[in-house]
């Protein structure tokens, strides 16, 4: 495995990513069932065999993950998001767990696909956000994220899950993304036909009120402990993603 050529995997990974892009929504019901016991779900599905996981080929963009859960959040102390170049203030959003393919979720030094979310506000306006994420989910298949409601968009209270779309866009550094780039991503999503999530489980329809971003991080870490325990970095429980024999 160590000497396995990246090039030889490229075609297969490309095909896999595209197949998943169009089928994963339909499989969301299965994903829900699997999600009942996430520990049993990982990591072998993404990386069969005992050897070291191999970095997948560069993923195809415009693929759609499965939304596992959503939790509306409001915070008393706003913060400036690092996932936009404008660093807009954020005071609410959705804490989200998604499940995706390892092609997409693999950590890379080079640009990773943006994680994007879009929907329609109660007033009918369309919004799009650069989603923050707290872990990669390469091994587990689960990524814990936060869809911020940035200052130039509507509050989460004005948003519904109806028509919510979450997808992976162009590979870019999130900190380099501005409103113009997001609009381009939105147009591209419309062009390629990114569809709305067919089923979204909202944990609690009433926004949970937290003090600040640190409490969002704490809540996210609790979800990582549940869905992606290999990525916990707290003292004493840090788990490498590869066997020690590497």
């Amino acid at each position, binding site marked *: *495995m*160590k*000497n*396995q*050529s*990246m*090039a030889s995997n490229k075609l297969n990974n490309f095909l896999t990513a595209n197949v998943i892009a169009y089928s994963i929504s339909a499989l969301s019901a299965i994903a829900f069932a699997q999600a009942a016991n996430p520990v049993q779900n990982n990591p072998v599905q993404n990386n069969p065999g005992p*050897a*070291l*996981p*191999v*970095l997948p080929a560069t993923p195809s963009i415009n693929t759609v993950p499965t939304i596992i859960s959503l939790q509306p959040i409001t915070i008393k102390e706003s913060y400036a998001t*690092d*996932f936009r170049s404008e660093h807009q203030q954020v005071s609410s959003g959705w804490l989200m767990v998604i499940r995706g393919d390892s092609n997409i979720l*693999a*950590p*890379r*030094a*080079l*640009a*990773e696909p943006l994680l994007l979310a879009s929907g329609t506000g109660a007033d009918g306006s369309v919004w799009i956000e650069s989603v923050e*994420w*707290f872990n*990669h989910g*390469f091994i587990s298949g689960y990524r814990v994220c936060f869809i911020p409601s940035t200052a130039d968009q509507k509050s989460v209270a004005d948003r519904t899950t109806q028509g919510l779309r979450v997808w992976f866009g162009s590979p870019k*550094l*999130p*900190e*380099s993304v501005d409103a113009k780039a997001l609009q381009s991503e939105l147009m591209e999503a419309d062009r390629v036909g990114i569809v709305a999530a067919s089923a979204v489980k909202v944990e609690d329809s009433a926004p949970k009120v937290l003090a600040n*971003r*640190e409490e969002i*991080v704490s809540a*996210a*870490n609790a979800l990582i402990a549940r869905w992606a325990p290999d990525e916990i*970095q*707290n*003292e*004493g429980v*840090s788990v*490498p*993603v*590869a066997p*020690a024999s*590497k």
Partner: protein
Amino acid sequence: MIYLPLRLSVVAAITSSVLLHATAQGACPGDINGDLRVDAIDLTILLANWSGTSTGDLNGDGFVDGADLTILISLWGQTCPPPQPTTEIRLACFPLTAAPFASFVQTFIAGTTVTIAVDPGFTPIQVGATADFFVVAARTTNEWAANDLLTDVRGTSQPITFAAGGISANRFTVTNGSTLSGDGGLSVGRGYDLVIDMDRNGRFSLGDLIDGGDDRAGLWISRDPTATGPRAVTTLSSYTATGATANFTLARLWYPTTIASMAPCPLVVISHGNGHQYTWYDYLGSHLASWGYIVISHQNNTVPGIETASTTTLQHTSAIIAQQATVASGAINGKIDASRITWIGHSRGGEGIVRGYDRIFDATYTPTGYGLSNIKFLCPISPTDFLGVNSANPHAANFMLLWGAADGDVSGTPTSSIAWSFDLAERSVGFRNTVYVHGADHNDFNCCGVNDFVGPSGTAILNAGAQAVAKAFILAGIKYHIEGETAMKEFMWRPSSTLRPTGVAATTTLVKELVPAASASVKSIDTFQTQTSTTLSSCGGAVTSTVTNVSEALSRDTDASFSWSTANPHNGSTRASSSDTGRMIAWDWNSAQNMEWAVPVSIGDVSAMNFIEVRVGQGTRHPNTVALAGGATFSIVLRDAAGIEVRVSSSAQGEAVNRPYQRTGDGSGAGWQNELRTIRLRLRDFQSGGTGINLGQIVAVRIEVGGTAGSATGRFIIDDLQFTKE
């Protein structure tokens, strides 16, 4: 010949009797009174001291007797050469099979054979004369002035007898050289000065030869820099940094267990890459701590990008300085030397540390507890280049880049300059060196990242191989830049065939560049920056050539493919993103051909310089490179104002320009980026054997290829042709 300032002080310190004795026993046996003749006066002195124990004791047996009289009579009437001042020369070397027959160096790995050589064409010696060779614990200039007594660390000196036949006949294996200790405490090695006591008086005196008479040790015996250092290490598995970005507050700490009894230790900060963890660099943290450093590895906010990553590096550096009284129960309180900081970053973290440095440089970020001048060394490992020259610029910082040729992530692909780690190195205007590691992938430099190896089967060096390289070269860099251990510099440019950390496998190919900062220690002939013409060098001299397909241009592959194309003459050059301006020259040959640079009078006096050097690599996938299928050799010719030309071959030094790593992809053929390495030829090699060339009046430098000068065919990428000092 170098006349040491210390000579006068030594002369002033010694007595006339010693001088007499020295002259008699040294280069001219029999000349007891030092008048350069063996005559009746000497006989009178000898007889006057008959049965004595010093003056007149020509054979050194402790008595003035008939044996001494016999020697004097045998030399009767001889005219002696004038006494020489003490002479600083290079003695330590490794032998070469062809001219110049010895490569003079300073650093040897402990346990290896050490050789010295004397070049009769450079240093006057008397054939048949015997002298005593001493290995002395290194002394500074002042220490030599204060103490000229020669004490051999081996217990006894080594007699050597000069022979006819040039330098090759005057090479001597240092007796017990392989047993010389490299134990320098927290220093990686130990220094020695080498003295040839020509007059055999047991003192460093007139006519003696010395290697290391200045503050530089003549010989440096280095322990294996991959080996654990002398201090036990205490690890704090995790602590929380106050003031760091939420969710990125954890860090791991390593420090010498005996730190309470130590002076404040330099600080080393490790910043991981995207998808990596701060717990993945134990091998490096514990290694450096065992050599006397306080090391932290911190959580790094890499997902949003480089700016956020740099912020966490900046924050954590401040935090450990601010929290030293409480972290690890105060064990490191007062023990952080915040004036000497090293930043190591991997992947996005590698670009992050450069960005962090740049932010301080640009005054867009002001850290607490330290400043720009306190960051002494930047060491990115396989860094990305998202930001370009304006935002990820190391400026004049001391800089070292490690990069794995089998990297499947920051791969160096011609399709994306984000993956061009070497951009960052080319931007450096300080001291910089790079180590291009064949067979290493991106995550071989940590414990646990995904497998991204892309390379020929059987070439992978895996984590152990790559981490041995990282341990050795990062330690060497820190010791050099932070501690002033100048001998460690040789690890940065000498080929592995002559200097290899023991823990780095002999089969591991390392391609090394070293570029000193522009300063008085550099006389540049051509940087290919300020003159775009191929017939004019950056120093203003004419350039003529017989080589073919010459192209001087940005060091940038322009067609997103490594397949060879005549339309892309700098194919394989991945060192100048769209924001960079670094240029190089490329050309090829199929017969005896050359390129010659005229050296203007203004820089033609290179008598105070030590090397002629050039960065050179093979043009990847070029038909000539493919045909050569191996290392490429060449010669450098110097010409002086009198028309004397001397040629030194790279192959004589065991030097060749590496064949590109035979990685495939991004086009047809095999071979990855153009791998540049620094080849340095010592200027005194051009004088070896008494060539008579005048280094004070060099008028031309010529690189010759093909024929008898080097490889029959090939294509070179060349930069930074220059004279440099040690």
